[in-house]
């Protein structure tokens, strides 16, 4: 234990920030929803999230014949919880709610919960299209997860730490996006994929009538869709400490820079959805394994050589 590097205290925000985190994340998600509605050309974009939430709050819940209600509802509930837990290691400004020494691994573990969650929702509805949607997400996970892990581990490698505050500190001179552009691009793609968003929305796509979410209504749909949005926001925000220098920036305080950079990444992800058609995994998995995995490994190797050379 004695050899462990001593962490400058206090690295984490006070305990009550944990209570504020859901509020903050919810607020950012709300803004992202408004932004998406504006992107889609809706006229009353500001009112769209409110109307949608009201609609789902008064909506009746429904059940399908011989569906596994408990499994489905646990699945839907896991999504927002996983997003919140993942966000706990996000530096909000300079410090996160929980400054775990294995922050990167924690984030990855929480994000992988979505695999189980979406599959459980699809299976729990006992509907063929729901099941197809659930399995599509499992296939998607197999395609995006390995390049994703190499991408985030490259950032950890660059800082020689899995702690997010240390990763941010290591970018004081040079943002990681400069020395590891491939990892950054792959991370952005996997951020969309883990939130089954944008071109990676096959698990809940129109062609299977909503896929995993096909049988959800009322509060169940609200929790599922809300959890998905929270996951998207968290994944976008995580790009900031990993690749974009965290709160570093001139003049303004750190938290403003984090907010600005997060908004920029989110805008990019919202744009992606309008730019590209849905990518089916039967076509994408080949690209992911044959092109992206070697690329990210080469990127990690290059960064490792830089780190060794610098040490």
């Amino acid at each position, binding site marked *: 234990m004695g050899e462990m590097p001593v962490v400058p205290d206090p690295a984490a925000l006070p305990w009550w920030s944990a209570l504020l985190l859901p509020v903050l994340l919810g607020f950012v998600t709300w803004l992202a929803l408004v932004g998406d509605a504006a992107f*889609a*050309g*809706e*006229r*009353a974009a500001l*009112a*769209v999230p*409110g*109307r*949608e939430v*009201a*609609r789902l*709050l*008064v*909506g*009746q*819940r*429904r*059940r*399908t*014949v*011989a*569906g596994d209600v408990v499994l489905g509802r646990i699945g839907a509930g896991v999504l927002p919880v996983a997003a919140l837990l993942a966000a706990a290691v996000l530096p909000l400004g300079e410090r996160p709610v929980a400054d775990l020494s294995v922050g990167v691994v924690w984030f990855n573990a929480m994000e992988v919960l979505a695999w189980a969650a979406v599959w459980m929702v699809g*299976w729990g509805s*006992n*509907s*063929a*299209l729901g*099941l*197809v949607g659930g*399995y*599509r997400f499992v296939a998607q996970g197999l395609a995006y997860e390995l390049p994703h892990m190499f991408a985030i581990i490259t950032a950890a490698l660059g800082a020689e730490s899995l702690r997010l505050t240390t990763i941010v500190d290591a970018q004081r001179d040079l943002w990681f996006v400069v020395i590891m552009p491939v990892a950054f691009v792959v991370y952005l793609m996997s951020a969309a994929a883990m939130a089954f968003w944008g*071109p990676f*929305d*096959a698990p809940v*796509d*129109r*062609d*299977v*009538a*909503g896929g995993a*979410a*096909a*049988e*959800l*209504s*009322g509060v169940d*749909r609200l929790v599922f869709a809300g959890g998905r949005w929270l996951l998207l926001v968290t994944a976008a925000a995580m790009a900031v400490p990993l690749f974009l220098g965290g709160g570093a920036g001139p003049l303004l305080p750190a938290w403003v820079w984090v907010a600005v950079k997060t908004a920029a990444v989110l805008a990019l992800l919202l744009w992606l*959805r*309008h*730019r*590209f*058609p*849905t*990518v*089916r995994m*039967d*076509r994408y998995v080949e690209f992911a394994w044959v092109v992206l995995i070697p690329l990210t490994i080469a990127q990690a190797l290059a960064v490792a050589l830089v780190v060794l050379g610098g040490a």
Partner: protein
Amino acid sequence: MDLTALLLRIAARRPHVLVVAVPGATGSRLALEAALARRGWPIATGPADADVLAVAGTPGPGLAAVVDAVWEQVPGPRARIEVQPPADVDERLDAASALLADVEHQRTEVVGGNEGHHGGHAVHGGHGTHDGPAEHGDHAGHPEHHDHAEHGGEAGGDHAGHGGGHHHGHGGTVAGLPMAELGPDRDGLTLDRLHIPLGPLLPDWPAGLVVRVTLQGDVIQEAAAEVLDAGHAVPFGWPSAAARELDGLARFLGVAGWPSAAGEARRLRDAFLAGERVSAGVAGLLRRIRRSRTLRRLIRGIPAGPADVAALLATKLAAIEAALPVDSRPGASPAPWRGGRTPVPPEPGDLADLLVGAELAAARLIVAVLDPDIDRAAAGTGAGHG
């Protein structure tokens, strides 16, 4: 302060509408879709996502049974409308929105549904709003929408396929549903088989078409197509080939998961039908589609008869260009994709044969790109498939 009433009022400003397209009543569907786009009301993906069930046209007996079954699956608060003359669309949608905001009505409906009373209030054609128990007395409102298994393979639209999950092939039933049976698959394994109908209520699906498929995983092993109420519909006369092609293109792009391009195609279709000049917009959309390497990679090599989906799409785009007034080509458009002959929309039976061996997503693309002319099949030659 009645919170429920407040939420209902807010929600009724932007309800999701499930559009049921009746073969032949394409004019009503176009008016409905244009009105929804004007209002910014989203089109629902299925009954669970819907607040308003909007039937465009007068369904024949087969489709009417499906609509009744689907109505049972729509969760409250809900409203049901039928749009016949296209000019009535806005009146009907306003009535639906008013009904959704009507707390007294929705409260009795929701509570009634849960206690096993009749569930089917409706706003029909010329009758305005019914306050009393509705005329769908024969569909006892089962609590929490338990009932759609009873409509099983016949009527439940895309959600009828509750084929008993993934248990063992012992036969028998669970909750009144047959278990999935086993069968050899394409890799020589023995896997569960599910029998589900595709259509008639899938998003971006040809009106009235039902393809009964046997699925293993999401691979189609067997398929048989039919047109509901074949012979019942009067074929719709499109005012122009360009509008018809744009309509088909919008549906294809929707199935391909490109909502922004699909919305643009739909907007251009509506503008064109309204008599506006759209050549520049159409040229821009075609350029955007042709330049998308992602789309090309995704649809290349999916066999759909003699050509693949990509080649058929190229023909479709060329047909739009050919059908539009001449000034639609500003010269700068990159070389179109090569290949494919002018496709003849297939008969439903032939269509089904093309789907065997395809994955569900590929099958949707094949149907969307071939865009079978249900109106014609329903009116003339389709009777044999009914």
